[in-house]
């Protein structure tokens, strides 16, 4: 909640003029009447291995036209490989990639007409900002190349769009990180791409600039409507920016869904652990009841087979209950201020399983107290789910 308020403040204070400029640039129209032809993208059973190591194992994904999708995962999860395959910079060992109904793998990088924004931006150092943005148009074969004046007009429009109106004559080395990022985006948009691909678009920027640019990218997307895929290892970025998030781990897609689905209903232990913070408590299921050590918890597990499980729940998603009400009882061993909340670490039962809960910042001095809590929403995973 607080994060949202903070962002609103940012927008009002820092991006007020940005809104005005985006509104002013509303007259910006693409050269060919549409912003390229936006297509939906289908990835079918795409696998990619480098020598003996497999980067992707049979990944399938459908991206609707105009959708903004995040590929989220830790490093080595294959997310960048998948993005490069979409962009034509890498090729799958198996599987198909379709742009609309067209087989994208049969197209060269140049023919794919994909806007690719690189993590390091890859701006051409020896060219001015203007020439960087104009590059994609100026290398077109003569009969498809717009006239010089048209290219210049187009570049000026894009400079307005990315709020770098007067910086066309600068060289990339003379720009800040955030400005370079925006030049890279303008350069990718200049070719009227069918899809827009961004590799860790905010990875190299500091926290404040990241947040502003995130909002700003979302606005650009809402205005131009490009089918957009971006790669990130930052869950906040993915959840805040994307229409849908695909969580990747070890070359497989663990879950695809809206940010709400991913956060509130993680499909796998990995997603539960990777997105947000999760407590994992070893429990036992016996005839529909969940036992912690030998006490039954006041949680109903419908249709679960008997046996050991991991009970997973979010630190903030708990309520305090009284003694004897079938709650999780434990001793507060530490308390830490955690942004707007206070985080208590609790040791539970004779095994001293440690869980963490978030309480209001005003609740201080709990250390050493005994508390009883129950998760409001929770999930059960197999007992070895959170190992390794």
């Amino acid at each position, binding site marked *: 909640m607080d994060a949202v308020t903070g962002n609103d403040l940012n927008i009002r204070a820092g991006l007020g003029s940005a809104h005005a400029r985006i509104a002013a640039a509303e007259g910006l129209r693409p050269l060919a009447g549409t912003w390229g032809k936006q297509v939906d993208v289908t990835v079918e059973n795409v696998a990619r291995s480098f020598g003996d190591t497999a980067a992707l194992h049979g990944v399938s994904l459908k991206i609707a036209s105009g959708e903004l999708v995040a590929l989220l995962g830790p490093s080595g999860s294959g997310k960048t490989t998948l993005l490069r395959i979409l*962009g*034509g910079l890498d090729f799958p060992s198996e599987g198909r990639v379709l742009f609309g109904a067209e087989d994208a793998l049969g197209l060269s990088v*140049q023919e794919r007409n994909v806007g*690719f924004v690189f993590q390091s931006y890859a701006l*051409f*150092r*020896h060219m001015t900002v203007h020439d960087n943005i104009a*590059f994609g148009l100026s290398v077109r074969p003569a009969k498809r190349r717009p006239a010089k004046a048209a290219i210049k007009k187009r570049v000026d429009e894009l400079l307005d769009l990315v709020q770098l109106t007067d910086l066309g004559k600068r060289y990339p*080395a003379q720009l800040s990180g955030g400005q370079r990022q925006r030049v890279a985006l303008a350069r990718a948009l200049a*070719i009227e791409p069918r899809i827009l691909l961004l590799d860790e678009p905010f990875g190299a920027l500091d926290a404040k600039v990241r947040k502003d640019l995130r909002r700003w990218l979302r606005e650009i997307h809402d205005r131009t409507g490009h089918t957009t895929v971006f790669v990130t290892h930052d869950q906040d970025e993915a959840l805040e920016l994307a229409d849908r998030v695909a969580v990747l781990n070890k070359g497989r897609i663990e879950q695809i869904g809206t940010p709400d689905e991913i956060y509130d209903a993680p499909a796998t232990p990995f997603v539960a652990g990777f997105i947000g913070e999760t407590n994992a408590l070893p429990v036992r299921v016996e005839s529909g009841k969940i036992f912690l050590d030998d006490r039954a918890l006041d949680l109903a597990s419908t249709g679960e087979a008997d046996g050991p499980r991991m009970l997973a729940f979010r630190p903030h998603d708990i309520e305090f209950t009284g003694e004897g009400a079938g709650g999780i009882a434990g001793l507060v061993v530490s308390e830490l201020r955690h942004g707007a909340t206070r985080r208590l670490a609790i040791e539970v039962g004779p095994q001293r399983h440690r869980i963490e809960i978030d309480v209001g910042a005003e609740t201080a001095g709990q250390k050493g107290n005994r508390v009883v809590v129950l998760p409001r929403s929770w999930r059960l995973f197999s007992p070895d789910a959170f190992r390794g």
Partner: protein
Amino acid sequence: MADVALVPPVGAPRRREVISEGLFVRVVLIAIAVALLGIFLLLPLVSVFYEAFRTGFGPYWAALGEKDALAAIRLTLLVAAIAVPANLVFGVAAAWAIAKFDFKGKSFLITLIDLPFSVSPVTSGLIYVLLFGAQGFFGPWLQSQGIQIIFAVPGIVLATIFVTFPFVARELIPLMQEQGTTDEEAAISLGAGGWQTFFRVTLPNVKWALLYGVLLGNARAMGEFGAVAVVSGKIRGQTNTMPLHVEILYNEYMAVAAFAVASLLAMLALITLGLKTFLEWRFSGEIAAIRR
């Protein structure tokens, strides 16, 4: 940051450098360095010009205007004019392949490019005599076709190309490897073809290193002695390059003439260095930007 930390607080006692030798040690070390530079670099250079002008300008100009000297100068320029562009193309192609692509035998190719640096120039020259000489591998066939390579201009050009081969490639490979391939990937994703990418992105990114390699390669091409001496046959007015001409004149006790021609070569070295320094100074900002 480190600079800030090193500044002593106001009113602190006399600043003492953390890393510094005593005065005596500093003076001795600097004196040794200056003496070595003076004796081994500066003095020889000065003496070349001193000997050349010892009897005044007249004999100097006469020595340079002499028929065989002019022929040697022309031949040297011709050889450089062929060898340097050839190695520019070879060097760029080799560096491009090595830095931007992965293939089997890559490290072997790098070693091969370094070969001319590690082989004695005399051996380099002999290789060509053994290949193209009258008794050489291709010799009889070449003779039957009426093509003369050894003891003629083609041999000199071949030997010079061989000796100067690493200069451009060696300058470019580390820089291109450091720059990686993302710029090229960006260019092709924006729709550029292979040649467009090469001429508009790859080449401009390395132009200063390229120029530097060409300058050094050119200096070596004009100054090469060993390899050329073996293949040239030293026919006066025909296959004598400037360095060979200097040696002949010197052996014939024509000191002024020898040093006059030598002074031209020394001048070439100075011009090369001056040009390099000027370019680095003039484009320092751009060079820094490209390396960034």
